C-alpha cells in the first residue's frame, strides 16, 4: 500500500470535517501510515472467508 502523504491525509480529514493542525500532521502521518502498512502486510489464510463479528455470535460459557 502506498504511503499517504500529508496533503492526502489533510484531504481525508477534510472529508470528515476535521481540521488538522500543523503541529499534528507529522505524528498523524506516522501513526496512520504505520497502521495501514502493518495491516496491509497481514493476510492469513481464510481472512476473506470470515465475518467481522467475532464477539457476539460465539457460543460461550
Amino acid at each position: 500500500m502506498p504511503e499517504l502523504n500529508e496533503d492526502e491525509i489533510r484531504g481525508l480529514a477534510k472529508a470528515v470535517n476535521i481540521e488538522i493542525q500543523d503541529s499534528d500532521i507529522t505524528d498523524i502521518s506516522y501513526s496512520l501510515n504505520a497502521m495501514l502498512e502493518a495491516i496491509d502486510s497481514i493476510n492469513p489464510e481464510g481472512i476473506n472467508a470470515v465475518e467481522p463479528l467475532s464477539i457476539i455470535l460465539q457460543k460461550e460459557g
Partner: protein
Amino acid sequence: MRDQELIFMSAADLATKMKEKQISPVEAVKAYLDRITEVDGKINAYITVLADQALAEAQQAESDINAGLIKGPLHGVPVGVKDQIYTKNVRTSSASKIRSDFVPDFDATVVEGLKRSGAIILGKLNMTEFAMGDPITSAFGVTHNPWDLTRNPGTSSTGSGAATASFMCATSLGEDTGGSVRGPASNCGLVGLRPSWGRVSRYGVDGASWSLDTIGPISRTVEDCALTLSAIAGFDQKDQYMKDVPVPDYCAALTGDIRGVKIGVVREFLDPDVMGVTQSVRQGVLQATEVLATLGAEVEEISLPLAPVAGVASRIISAVERSSLHPEWLRNRPNEFHHNTRVAFTTGELIPSQVYYKAQKLRTLVRKQTLEALERFDVLVMPGASEPATVMNLEPGIRSKEAAVRALTEASYRGFFSLVSGPALSICCGYTAEGDNKLPLGMQIAGRPFDEAMVMNVAYAYEQNTNWHLECPSL
C-alpha cells in the same frame, strides 16, 4: 496496630481482621489517607481523594460491625477506582480537561458492586487521558512507577497500578481495552485481571472501545483479585453485551491444586526473533512454568502463529471505536486534548472502514485459533510484555513511523487476549537484577471465556509457591 503494618496487609487479611474487630475501618482509612499524604506527592496516583466521605463511610462500617452487620467480603476495605468509572456526586474526569467538571449523578454498576460488598471508595485514580495508551497524557499530571519514578507505571490504568503497588489503597479497579489492567499489573508487580468480555458490567464507565472494554481488579495478591472480582462480576441488563453466566465463588476456587492442569506456553511470545522479548522477561516466564510443572501441571509449548499480529488488529479496532465515541470534541474542542490524544483520535477517524473490517476479521481468526488451543489446554501462558517498565518519554509526539510500527507489535502481548475475549491475568514472575533497577516482570495466564476461576487458581498456586508478591518498592 501501626499504620505501616496495616497498609501492607492484603485486602483479604484486612477484611478478616475487621470482622474480628482487631482493626477498625476508621483506623484503616486513616492509615491509607496518611500513606497518600506521605507518598502521593512522588507518585501522583490520585486525581481525587475522598477523605471526608471515606472517613464517614468508615465510621458507618465500624458501627455496622459493632452491630453484627457485615455487608460483604470487602466490608470496610479501602478501594481506589479509576477515574473513568462513574461515582455518584464525585468528579469523574477520564483524566481529561474536557471532562474535568463532569460529576455523574449515579454510580457505575461496578461501584455499586463494591459498595454492596462493603468496600469504602478512597478516591479516584489517575489514568491516561480517555484511557489512551500513552503515560504522559493525563490532564492531572504524569503518574510514576513506584519501583522507579522515571518509569512507566503501565497504561492506561496508571493510578490503579501505582496506588496499589505503593500501598495507597488495599485493592483497585482499572479498565482494560488492549491491556490497561494487565499493563499496570505487569509494570508494578501486581495481579491484574481482565475478565471475560460480558462478565463485568461496563454501565457507567466512560468507554474507550465498545468491543474491547472490560473492568477488572488490580490487586496485590490473587486472593485480593478474586475478592474484588467477586464484588463486581455478574449480569447487569444495563450493559447490552453482558452474558447471564453464573458467577462462581472465586475465593473458594483458590485451592492451589493444579495437578493435571494443562498449560500451553505460547511459543511466539518467548522467541526473541519473533517478538523481541528480553532475556529477563523470557527467563522469568520460563522459570515460572517450571514452578507450575513441579506443582503437577502439564506444561507444553504451543504455537499460535496469529498471536504476533494481534496488536495491529486490536490497535486499529480500538482507535476507530474510541474516536467514534465523542466526535464533536475533536471538531469543537481540539485544543483541550493532549497532543498525543488528539493525534490518536484523529488517526482513528481517518482509518478506512475496510481496514477496520479487516482488523475485525483478523480478530475472528485470532480468536478461533486461540479458542481451539484452549480446547486442548486449560490455560495459556506468556509474558505480560517484551520488557520491564520502560523509562517514560515525557516529550509529546511520535518519533517515527517505524516507532509507531514497533508499538503495534508490542501491543500484541496484551492485545492478543483482548481480541480473544476470555479472561487474562498478569502476575509478577520475578524482578530484573540489572544494576540497581529492581523492576517487576509480568507473566500472563489466560483461559477459556468465563473461566476466571481456573485462571486465578493457576496464578494462586504459583503465588503461594513463590515470594515475589511479598516484595515492596522503597519510597
